[in-house]
């Protein structure tokens, strides 16, 4: 009898949970705190940002004194010949493609080497973690010293090539900032690709070996296609990350000299704080957010694809 009683109890319990699932209030209730904090603050902030981008607002005066100017800032940024936007897009583009190309290349080849039987692999992975976890603002400052005329980089340059460069001058500043980025983020690619290599299936490679494929053929026809989704995902992630970097460039060059290293995030700061034009700076910020939203949509499509494939 006792047994039957338990069974009945279980039946009732299962019944009640099923019913609970049908009402489906719980999932929303559980999400409520996060939703309230995150979206509450975010929506308020972004709405205020958009309002800021539509007014002419003198620095230091209360917001009530601001004058509505509509889309004037956007139109100016997109059409005026004095607009810094085009130059900034150019700088950001060079920065993105330059760093991504080098980081992908070094990351891929070094991960490939590390994947072989290497002495002390775990020590290497620990070493490669360091550049990306230390404070970017401090990283910027130490590299600023290394790039000074009598600094570390010029010392090595003089020893190896015999010339000293004015790294933080107009011609080389962008390259200098890119080198810092490469130092910071190549390890990220190395570690990710190493993880990717280790997750690859072994059978196709054994089959290729049996068929007598050369090392080059294995790389082009097997490894690269198998790694392609990973390479794409990581590149997009990194691309978006570059569109968020402010601290390192701010500390190393501050966007200068002139406007040689003004990437989009730096442009937001420059227009708002240096040019003291809150409206225009906010307009750049809104454009940056729109760009990020588009990229996130693309990335999310890729993520979901890989989720389904799993």
């Amino acid at each position, binding site marked *: 009898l006792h047994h039957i009683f338990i069974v009945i109890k279980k039946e009732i319990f299962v019944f009640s949970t099923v019913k609970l699932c049908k009402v489906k209030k719980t999932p929303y209730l559980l*999400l409520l705190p996060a939703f309230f904090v995150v979206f509450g*603050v975010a929506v308020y902030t972004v709405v205020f940002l958009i309002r800021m981008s539509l007014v002419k607002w003198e620095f230091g005066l209360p917001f009530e004194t601001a004058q509505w100017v509509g889309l004037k800032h956007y139109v100016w940024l997109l059409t005026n010949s004095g607009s810094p936007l085009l130059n900034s897009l150019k700088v950001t583009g060079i920065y993105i493609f330059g760093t991504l190309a080098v980081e992908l290349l070094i990351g891929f080849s070094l991960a490939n080497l590390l994947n072989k039987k290497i002495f002390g692999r775990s020590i290497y992975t620990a070493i490669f*973690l360091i550049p990306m976890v230390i*404070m970017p603002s401090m990283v910027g400052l130490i590299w600023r010293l290394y790039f000074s005329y009598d600094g570390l980089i010029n010392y090595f340059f003089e020893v190896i090539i015999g010339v000293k460069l004015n790294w933080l001058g107009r011609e080389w500043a962008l390259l200098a900032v890119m080198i810092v980025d490469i130092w910071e983020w190549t390890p990220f690619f190395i570690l990710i690709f190493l993880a990717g290599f280790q997750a690859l299936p072994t059978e196709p490679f054994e089959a290729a070996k049996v068929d007598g494929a050369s090392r080059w053929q294995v790389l082009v026809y097997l490894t690269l296609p198998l790694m392609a989704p990973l390479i794409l995902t990581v590149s997009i992630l990194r691309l978006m990350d570059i569109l968020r970097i402010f601290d390192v460039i701010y500390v190393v060059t501050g966007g200068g000299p002139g406007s040689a290293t003004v990437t989009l995030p730096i442009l937001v700061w420059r227009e*708002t704080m240096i040019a003291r034009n809150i409206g225009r700076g906010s307009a750049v*910020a809104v454009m940056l957010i729109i760009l990020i939203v588009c990229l996130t949509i693309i990335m999310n499509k890729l993520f979901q694809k890989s989720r389904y494939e799993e």
Partner: protein
Amino acid sequence: MHFKFKKVTRNKFFINLLVLGVAVAFIFPYFFMVTSSFKSRLDTFAYPPIFLFFRPTFKNYISIFKDIHILFYMKNSFIVSTGSTLLSILIAIPATYSLARYRFRFREKIAFGFLLLQMTPGISIVFSLFFIVKRMGLNDTHIALIISYLLWNIPFTIWMLRGFVESIPAQLEEAAMVDGCTRFRAFILVTLPLMAGGLVAVAIIVFIFTWNEFAIAFFLTSTKARTMPTTIAFFMTHAGIKWGPMFAAATIGTLPVVIFALFVRKYFISALTLGAIKQ
């Protein structure tokens, strides 16, 4: 045969050497930073640079503790990072559970909304945040920073934890519920202990991100709530940069992070890719 064997070992030797060389190149700037923090002013600017053999001095460390009061800013950083990390974990756990275990309308849309927020550049909304915080009279307070960081930390935590919860079979919870637990108790007693390792790792990573964050802290604080990364402004004076103390501050500010990161290095890559790559 003998020759071939030799060639293979030689190749292996060169590969090892190459990897070692690259690793040295990557660790060197950090190594130089740490050693420079023990150099006197003259040795810091010596050309050619002095790498190993110099007379160590603790002057720089004494200077940052006495003149710049670095401990005060470290305390601020600690309060803000810990507060924001704990709050975001607390708020994110129920949300994660909901996204991972229930099926409901707009589920993926909401998850995507969190992802969007996580991706928003701090610098793009910091000035808007600044004016809002100022209007509320909260500028230069810990609480303003903590709440601002939640904007990025909660979505990140949700995205990371979701994978952990999904990897724990729901049948375990159902079994506990059949035995008479409520869903809440089943989660606390069964799922939570199983994801504890991941939870700690995510907490440490969120802590590191918050500890390192610059832009928000730089524009939202001035003196009372100023955090470690923004103290660089103290070293960039009109009379040039005070390099010695700067190296000392950088060493002290990065050391805990490096140690922490080594503890969670298994999780770090999947964290930086928002769980897209599992290690």
